[in-house]
């Protein structure tokens, strides 16, 4: 039974509690606060073992769902799984309403400051804001002066990091106004919690997150130029290497907005357009996750590859709106914090409701003096975040020499520095290694502009320090996240705006597939089959080598050599076995085969192709279902190189291939089940069919075109059929020993065999008809011409003739010719599709003229 007294409850034996600092869990009476008591009642009902296993479920689910947070500068360059604690962060309703009002006021105030800074700058002219604080800040973008977006507010999105001081008051630690991140992670945390531990919500009225996202959708609609009721809204991401790329694609799926990179967009006629496979489509609103400075190489950062030249002019002309507007990074300026109270009085005639962390801006003599004198006890920040991110220094952590160097730097450009009070942060319970321990926590809140003010997310993202004492919290540094629960009844009002806006979105047109997505889907299709084809062939060869070793007959040795050589040619992993003099490779084939399987650095290897597959998947990650991610995870597992002895190695390599093949087939099956039959599907499956055709042709070229003696040919035919899982089909259809003419009939011409070339060409032809055409009339496009030619060639070729050859011939000449021509035609289709639908963007170049 749960005791409300902390001391007497063994569950909290690792939770050290001091009276000195505010404790989220425990009141001054030493008892659990009421909402925590309710929470821990459910928690203990589940029991320690169950909690630990649920906590593992969370981690597994995060992994499977592919929730990641990329670390810049991580040598492996690989995304890191998100971390989430099963114990949430609780805020009671009364406290929340205070926080909500405080943040709404602050958002309103920052909005007015932003409007003024890029408007007539009265605050500076009247001495309420020091000129240096704004003009010296790298976030002040002069080209944005005088540019105003439609809508009630200029600041559309606002995010604040909050911490509770040891005195129990909630403080604003950071303001985020550039491209605030975290709302998607907050949503993902909530989704995970409700799935994994629904019991923990018992008897607690936890506010929902969805109203915020409706408000976000609504807020973005409100800023559309010309009040367009059906605007096209895109999310602009720097790309899959960005630290929060997961969130960009997650939000894009959740909100139903197209995810784009800078070069997916272009400015023409002063409007912004999205490049799609059906041509250009006008974009009305951009939700940007690219820092403003990078958004326009013409007027902002000249060498930026992430932006769109001419974007700012399009905004200036009122043809596109951006949330947050370009230039809003100026508010992410800790120096501003010390001026907010007087500004609130001046602009709102109110006092600032939420206290801001005490800040001394060194641009003033008195404050400078204070900071220089008290360096040890302060946190020193530059007014802008620098590119490496490490602009915060704890004065106490510096050596004497470092401190005096810092003093010199501050004295040299005082207006670039602030000193901030070090806040003690309250502690909250966290599950660490199966024990409940205290941790410091930071809470990020999200607000979005609406016609009638700002709507705050009723929830947020909570992050905790990695150890009990640490007070600097960042995902870059490690540490955990928590779901944040606001405990209060849901207000009765219905979100009328939600119904309004969802009606307009459902009534909308069928959006065209962006070229960027089309290209990546096409390549996902191609790499799917490339990995699969190579894995199957390598498996066939490995199985043969494993068995053939036992028999060791001449025929077997010859077959093995032929298969190994074909494997090198098929996978394009030269020199490998293609060098017939390379006896070393032939006498130790496993070493080479292992390399072809696992060596990531080797072009053509399965691992290498899988990485390409993976990369393409990530570029269009909003297209895949949750189950799909699970399957991709298992492919990653399958391709982990075994550390075992060579003998065990053989079997485990074949097993790895088995697992990889099964997962890849599951991937194809899932796509067939879950991807709607639109342009995306066409691109994906056309890519698959083209790759399948090319691989089949290559397989026949490398195994059968050069003639072998009868027994070896028989073995090779068997290998070909096994690699295409068609041996059963063959036996069923022909009921006789393997013959080349029949194998060719099955693999090239049989319209009912889903692995035949005939079948692939039919599918490709059907898909191509559904691609958008940029011209009317009856003339054929380039790719249609090529596929028609391939189709005709297949129809006209004489099946019997292909496997005919004279006694002295060393090759099947007609087969060779036929396969070469087919290969040329189908590669041609791929090239023309690429040229027609994918962007072949020339890199924008900056030209600056000197007088």
């Amino acid at each position, binding site marked *: 039974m749960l005791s409300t007294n902390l001391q007497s409850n063994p569950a909290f034996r690792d939770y050290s509690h001091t009276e000195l600092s505010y404790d989220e869990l425990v009141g001054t009476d030493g008892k659990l606060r009421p909402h925590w008591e309710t929470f821990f009642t459910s928690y203990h009902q589940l029991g320690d073992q169950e909690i630990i296993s649920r906590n593992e479920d969370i981690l597994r689910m995060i992994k499977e769902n592919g929730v990641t947070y990329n670390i810049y500068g991580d040598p492996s360059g690989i995304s890191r799984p998100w971390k989430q604690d099963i114990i949430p962060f609780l805020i009671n309703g009364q406290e929340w309403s205070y926080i909500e009002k405080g943040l709404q006021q602050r958002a309103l105030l920052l909005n007015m400051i932003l409007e003024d800074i890029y408007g007539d700058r009265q605050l500076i002219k*009247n001495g309420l804001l020091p000129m240096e604080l704004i003009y010296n800040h790298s976030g002040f973008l002069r080209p944005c002066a005088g540019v105003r977006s439609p809508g009630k507010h200029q600041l559309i999105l606002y995010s604040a990091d909050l911490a509770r001081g040891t005195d129990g008051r909630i403080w604003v630690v950071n303001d985020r106004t550039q491209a605030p991140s975290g709302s998607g992670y907050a949503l993902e945390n909530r989704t995970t919690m409700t799935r994994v531990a629904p019991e923990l919500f018992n008897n607690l009225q936890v506010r929902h997150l969805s109203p915020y996202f409706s408000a976000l959708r609504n807020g973005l609609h409100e800023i559309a130029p010309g009040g367009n009721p059906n605007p096209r809204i895109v999310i602009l991401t720097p790309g899959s290497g960005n630290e929060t790329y997961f969130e960009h694609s997650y939000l894009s799926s959740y909100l139903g907005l197209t995810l784009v990179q800078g070069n997916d967009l272009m400015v023409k*006629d002063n409007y912004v357009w999205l490049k799609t496979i059906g041509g250009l489509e006008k974009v009305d609103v951009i939700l940007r996750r690219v820092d403003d400075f990078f958004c326009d190489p*013409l007027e902002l950062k000249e060498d930026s590859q992430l932006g769109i030249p001419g974007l700012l*002019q399009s905004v*200036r002309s009122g043809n596109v709106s951006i949330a947050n507007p370009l230039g809003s990074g100026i508010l992410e300026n800790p120096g501003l914090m010390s001026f907010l109270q007087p500004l609130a009085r001046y602009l709102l005639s109110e006092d600032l409701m939420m206290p801001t962390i005490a800040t001394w801006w060194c641009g003033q003599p008195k404050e400078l003096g204070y900071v220089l004198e008290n360096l040890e006890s302060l946190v020193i920040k530059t007014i802008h975040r620098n590119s490496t991110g490490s602009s915060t220094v704890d004065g106490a952590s510096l050596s004497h020499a470092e401190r005096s160097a810092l003093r010199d730097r501050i004295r040299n450009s005082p207006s670039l520095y602030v000193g901030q009070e070090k806040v003690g942060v309250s502690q909250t319970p966290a599950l660490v290694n199966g024990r409940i321990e205290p941790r410091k926590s930071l809470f990020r809140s999200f607000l979005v502009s609406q016609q009638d003010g700002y709507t705050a997310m009723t929830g947020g993202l909570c992050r905790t320090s990695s150890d009990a004492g640490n007070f600097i919290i960042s995902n870059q540094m490690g540490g955990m996240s928590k779901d944040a629960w606001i405990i209060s009844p849901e207000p009765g009002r219905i979100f009328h705006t939600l119904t309004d806006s969802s009606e307009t979105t459902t009534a909308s047109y069928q959006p065209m597939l962006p070229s960027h997505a089309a290209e990546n889907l096409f390549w996902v299709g191609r790499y799917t089959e490339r990995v699969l084809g190579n894995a199957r062939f390598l498996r066939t060869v490995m199985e043969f080598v494993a068995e053939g070793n036992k028999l060791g007959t001449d025929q077997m040795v010859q077959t093995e050599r032929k298969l190994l050589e074909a494997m090198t040619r098929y996978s394009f992993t030269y020199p490998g076995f293609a060098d017939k003099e390379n006896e070393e490779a032939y006498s130790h084939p496993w070493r080479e085969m292992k390399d072809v399987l696992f060596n990531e650095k080797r072009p053509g290897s399965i691992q290498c192709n899988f990485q390409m597959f993976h990369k393409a998947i990530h570029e269009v990650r909003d297209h895949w279902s949750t189950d799909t991610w699970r399957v991709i995870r298992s492919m990653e597992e399958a391709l982990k190189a075994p550390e075992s002895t060579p003998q065990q190695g053989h079997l485990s390599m074949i097993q790895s291939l088995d697992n990889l093949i099964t997962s890849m087939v599951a991937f194809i099956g899932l796509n067939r089940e879950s991807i709607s039959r639109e342009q995306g599907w066409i691109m994906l499956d056309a890519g698959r069919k083209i790759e399948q055709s090319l691989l089949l042709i290559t397989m026949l070229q490398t195994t059968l075109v050069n003639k072998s003696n009868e027994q070896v040919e028989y073995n090779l035919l068997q290998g070909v059929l096994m690699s295409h899982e068609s041996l059963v089909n063959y036996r069923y259809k022909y009921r006789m020993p393997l013959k080349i003419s029949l194998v060719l009939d099955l693999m090239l011409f049989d319209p009912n065999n889903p692995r035949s070339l005939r079948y692939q060409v039919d599918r490709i032809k059907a898909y191509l008809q559904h691609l958008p055409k940029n011209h009317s009339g009856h003339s054929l496009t380039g790719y249609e011409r090529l596929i028609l030619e391939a189709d005709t060639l297949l129809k006209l070729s004489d099946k019997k003739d292909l496997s005919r050859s004279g006694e002295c011939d060393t090759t099947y000449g007609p087969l060779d010719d036929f396969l070469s021509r087919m290969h040329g035609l189908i590669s041609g289709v791929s090239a023309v599709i690429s040229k027609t639908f994918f962007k072949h963007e020339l890199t924008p170049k*900056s*030209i600056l003229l*000197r*007088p």
Partner: protein
Amino acid sequence: MNYIITHKTTYRYFEPVSLCYNIARLIPRNTDKQVCKNLHIRIHPKPDIIHEYEDFFGNRVMYFSIEKEHSSLSVTVTSEIEKTTTPAIDMGLYNNTTAEEVKKELLDNREGGAEIWQYTLETPMTAWNDEIQAYALESFSPGRPLFDAARELMTRIYQDFEFEPGATTIATPLSTVMRERKGVCQDFAHLAIACIRSQGLPARYLSGYIETISPAGGEKLIGADASHAWFSVYISSMGWVEFDPTNNMLPTEQHITIGWGRDYADIAPLKGIILSSGQHELAVSVHVEREGQNTR
């Protein structure tokens, strides 16, 4: 007196350009010394979009884009400028204002002075080092009238530095200019500005034109082939006083201003983004003529 200025910029591209976006600051703004009476802009090929606006510093900016394939671009701006006659500078008037007085006035009047005070801030192109600061200190001794100090600085730059076209590029840092002691007009303007700002005083970068041959048969001035650059210093009693370190003179009649900023980057005459894979070459010509004089 009226001037007619023809400024022609031509880009030739080795590969065709499918799209280009440009920002031009080529239209002279009106000042207390000049009025732009007539303006003729010819851009070939014809831009699909052209839009004029005023920037943060009040300069006239022209944005244009060309959205069809082209292999050359030419921008010709012809402006007719009326110079309002400036009386010869009366030294006595501001000989007395010292740097300290200017600073004090700006500090006391920070509110109204913010627009002037912003020109004290260091920018990447006007970054100073110890050497530059020491160079400035030779002229800016305590108690000295600011005008004297600035004029001496101008003269010293004129004497100590060699005008050598091609010696520097747009990316050459001031520290190199200082060490090598050579450069072109905007290096000298940047250097003077860095020197003055290193003393905590406001200085502006000006872009414009200069009439190189005075009709009276005077000395030939430097700056014929392209646009010109010089600087100005804020002196309380006088406002912004201009200096041309390339020609060691106080700009009066023969200088025509396009506009100003903190440094070159704020008032670059023409910059653009092209979508192309190839190289380009560039030709610029500037003609400054007095109206009524023989036209070529």
